[in-house]
Each structure stands twice: as C-alpha cells, then as structure tokens.
C-alpha cells in the first residue's frame, strides 16, 4: 500500500530540488508530477526554477589565464629552494635575535594598530574599545549618540538592560499618530545638512591616527514602535529588506534586551524612502514614541570614501596594465575586471551619495 505523505513546504522543497537534480525515486517523481498537474502555480514555479538551474549549467567554463601554471610552478620551486636553505642553515648561525626582535616589533605594531582601530571603530570593535585606556576612549566616544548601527539607544537609554523610557514631552507610552509623524519626518529630511566631500579622511600612517576623527552629526528621526509579537516583527524585517529600495541588510538591526524582555528593531531609511518605510512598519506596530536627534555618520562615510579611493586606484592600475597587455586572453580578462571595478565604483559612489542625503532611523520596541 502506498503511503501518502502530506504536501507541505518542506516536502515541496524536497521534491522540487530532487526533480531538478533528477534524484527522485519513482514514487517521489509520481507524487511530484501529480502535485504539479493539480497546481498550475507550483508547476510554473518548478519550470522557472528549472530554467534558472539550466542557465547556471549553461554557463561556459573559463580557461585559465596565460602562464597560470608556470607561475604556480615558479612559486613551488621557490618554496622548495627556501625549504632547502632553511634546512642547510647551521643551527648556531640561525638569526634568533632577529627573530625575537621581529616578534617584538610585530607585537608592538599590532598593539598600535589595535589601539588605533578600536579608537576609530568602537562600534565595530566594541570589545576592544572597552579595553582601551581612557585617553583613547575619550576621543572615540565624544559625539556619541550615534554609535553606528549598534548604538541606537545610547542617547535615550544609556543604561543597558533598562526599559526604554518615553521621551520628554511625548506622553509616556501613549500611542502617537503615525501619519503625522511620517509627514514630519519626511519634511525634516529635506532640510538635513549635506555631508559633502569636504569631510577629512582618517588615515593610519605607521600605526598612528594621522588625523582626528571628524565630527559629522546628522539629524535623524528616531521612532519607537510597539509590536504585538516577535514573529510579526521578524517577518517585517524580511518585508522591508525585500520591498524597500536602498535598504541593505546591515541597515537593519534586531536586538533583544531589557527586563521585561523587549525587541528593538532598527531600520535606517534613506530620506526618500521614509514615508514608504513607515507604511511598512505600520503593518505590524504602532508608533510608540519618537525623537529627533543627531547621528554621526563619519565612520561609514570615511570607510566608503576609502573604498572609493581604492577602487579608483585599482581602475587606474588595470587601465595601465590593459594598455601594456598584448596577450588577447589576458586582455579580455583585464577588460572584464575593469568593467566589474567600474560597476563597484558606481555602487559605492551611490552609497556615499545616500549618506549625503541623511538617513532616518526607526526603532521598534516589543513589550
């Protein structure tokens, strides 16, 4: 007697991928075919996925670049030579002192870089930042309120684990009018100061911070939402990610803290997406409270600026190589890389332009 397994999403995924991979048993294939014949939308989904995989499999295999094998063999021979030299070196002539000095130097360099990085990126390296002596911490935490992605609550609820308190003048936990807030928020965005290319960059030269981190504070709107349940809030994140242009994964943060346990959801919206974003948020919660405050974007701005600079250097370098290259295959590869670099450059420039527009931060609070 044939056992009928009920069709759910898990079963469907199994059959669908098995069908694509041609790994279904006779019975499974029969189940699959019966199911798609009764469900035209599933049939369409299967055909579409099949085409996708066929597209992947149709992609031609690339040839290795000219001289690829020879370069590896050169390195192999080089490695062999070094191995031979080390083995043949008399033990008493081994440069032990030099090794010790090198290790000390490396340790010192690591410490300096560690201190520099932690003072520049306290949010990226929060653990490290806590280890810094006060002299370094002071510089890196001034202007705070910002705290990048992870410092959402710093201005209003600095004590970690404390329940969020209503903002002054906002009526202690009353549900505010969402639509009015959205309008106000969108309006405020238009008047945000622009962060231009005048912003000085932070460079690390020989392990020291060459320039003090600039102050770049941008007003943003902080909105707190009361969310009925966690599942809805999480599904909202997915919706926002899928449906909102300009929202990247790292612009959304979910954090559970407080006592009683609370879910904080923070989404950064580019100014022109604010109203649409609010509509999304309104599907799962109501405005709880909000505040306009300042947000320091300098770290992101500088990181993106550095990325852009590096890409420009890469592009110039590749253009130069391309001009000198005579081998047609290598030339073709260099051209492809150049196109990729140019696309990346455009993307990063766009990200930078988005920072220029200012952002809106929205926070959901689950009670």
């Amino acid at each position, binding site marked *: 007697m044939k056992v009928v397994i009920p069709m759910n999403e898990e079963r469907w995924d199994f059959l669908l991928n098995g069908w694509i991979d041609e790994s279904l048993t006779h019975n499974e294939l029969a189940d699959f075919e019966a199911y798609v014949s009764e469900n035209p939308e599933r049939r369409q989904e299967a055909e579409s996925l099949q085409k996708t995989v066929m*597209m992947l499999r149709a992609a031609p295999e690339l040839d290795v670049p000219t001289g690829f094998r020879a370069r590896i*063999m050169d390195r*192999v021979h080089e490695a062999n030579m070094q191995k031979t030299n080390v083995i043949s070196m008399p033990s008493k002539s081994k440069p032990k002192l030099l090794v010790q000095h090198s290790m000390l130097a490396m340790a010192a360099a690591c410490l300096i870089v560690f201190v520099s990085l932690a003072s520049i990126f306290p949010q990226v390296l929060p653990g490290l930042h806590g280890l810094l002596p006060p002299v370094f911490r002071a510089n890196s935490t001034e202007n705070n309120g910002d705290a990048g992605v992870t410092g959402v609550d710093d201005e209003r609820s600095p004590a970690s684990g404390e329940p969020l308190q209503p903002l002054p003048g906002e009526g202690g936990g009353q549900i505010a009018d969402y639509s009015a807030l959205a309008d106000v928020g969108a309006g405020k965005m238009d008047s945000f100061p622009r962060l231009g290319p005048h912003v000085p960059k932070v460079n690390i030269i020989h392990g020291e911070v060459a320039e003090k981190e600039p102050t770049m504070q941008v007003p943003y709107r902080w909105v707190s939402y009361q969310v009925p349940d966690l599942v809805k809030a999480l599904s909202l994140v997915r919706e926002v990610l899928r449906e909102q*242009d300009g929202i990247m994964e790292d612009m959304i943060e979910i954090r559970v803290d407080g006592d009683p346990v609370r879910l904080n959801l923070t989404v950064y919206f580019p100014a022109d997406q604010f109203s649409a974003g609010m509509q999304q948020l309104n599907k799962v919660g109501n405005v709880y409270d909000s505040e306009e405050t300042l947000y320091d974007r300098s770290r992101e701005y500088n990181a993106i600026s550095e990325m852009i600079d590096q890409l420009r250097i890469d592009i110039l370098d590749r253009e130069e190589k391309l001009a000198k290259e005579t081998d047609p295959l290598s030339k073709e590869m260099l051209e492809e890389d150049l196109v990729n670099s140019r696309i990346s450059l455009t*993307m990063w420039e766009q990200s930078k332009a988005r920072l220029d527009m200012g952002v809106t931060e929205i926070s959901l609070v689950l009670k």
Partner: protein
Amino acid sequence: VEEQENQYIHRCQQGDPQAFEEILKLYEKKVYNLTYRMMGNHEDANDLAQEAFIRVYQSIDQFRGDARFSTWLYRIATNVCLDELRKRSRRQAESLDEPVLTQDGSVMREIPDWSDNPEEALNRREIQTMVQTGIQSLPEEQKIALILRDLQGHTYEEIAEMLDISLGTVKSRINRGRMALKGIFEKDRELLLQVSRPME
C-alpha cells in the same frame, strides 16, 4: 585515472614537483573557475587559485586519502576564497534592481533587456555575465554551495564534506540559493525561455 592520480600524489608527497605539475594540469581549470565564480573577477581568481594550489602543495603531506583528493583540494580552494571574502568584510552590495546613479542620470544596473535579439543573448559572454552577476548577489554560504553543485557538478555529499557541514544544510543552502537566483533571472524572461526545456 584515479590510480594515476594516486601515483602523482604519492610522488608529490615524496617531494617531486613534476608530479605536482601533473596534478595541476588535472585540476587547474576547475579550481580557477571556482575562484572566479566566488570572487567575481579574474585578478582575484588568479591570485586565489594560485594561493590554493600553493597551500595544496605545502600540505599534501597531510593528505592521507581518507577523502577523495578532489574533495580535499576543493575544500582548500573554498576556504581560501571564504577567508579572503571575510577578510575584506565588505558591505554587501546593493540588490540588483536598484538604479545606479551615473553621470548620465539614473540607469538600471541589472541585466540588460535582450528580448529584441534572443539569439545574441544566448552567446557565451552574455550568459556568463548574467550568471556571474546573479551569483555575486547571493550570500557567501549560498554562493559557494550553488557554485559547487550547479556549476561544478559535485554531489550533495561531496559538498557537505568540502564545506564541513551537514547534508541537510547543503540542501537548504542550495535550495535557497536557487530560489534567490530564480528571482533575479526571472527579470529577463526572454532569455530564460531560450534555455528552457519543456517539462515532461
């Protein structure tokens, strides 16, 4: 072939560079394609494929034959790519449907509309570009699983061994990767139609 490969490995473990060159001949194309798909450009692919082979050479003494040699080798190549990607820890690029601002105004970055000329759309380079663009938009975990399965043709079991993850995880990553790519490729239905085969 397997016996010959074993001989090369054995000779290589004895320190014979010529044997390593033979191994290189067998796998260079596969490894290069893997690193290219992972990194998205030839320059990085070249560097990382070289790096992978050097690591293979340096650690071939440790290969005991518990797994297939190819699995062991691809695992090294995969780790080289993932290490590099994590090291860079670049922010994830925007989704493909976002407009790109250029000097000439706002344009769509994604796959161009080739529906006027489907034959041309099928040529080698365009499929290459489309596949590469789609793959690059996937998260690393899905990307590597999909490359190993649908571009390189490894079995689920081999991929689980290469990536040191469970079979269930491999299936789930491939499934999610395929679904994500489907969404991307569906934006150009005309092109998809050209590579489709009718459902039996």
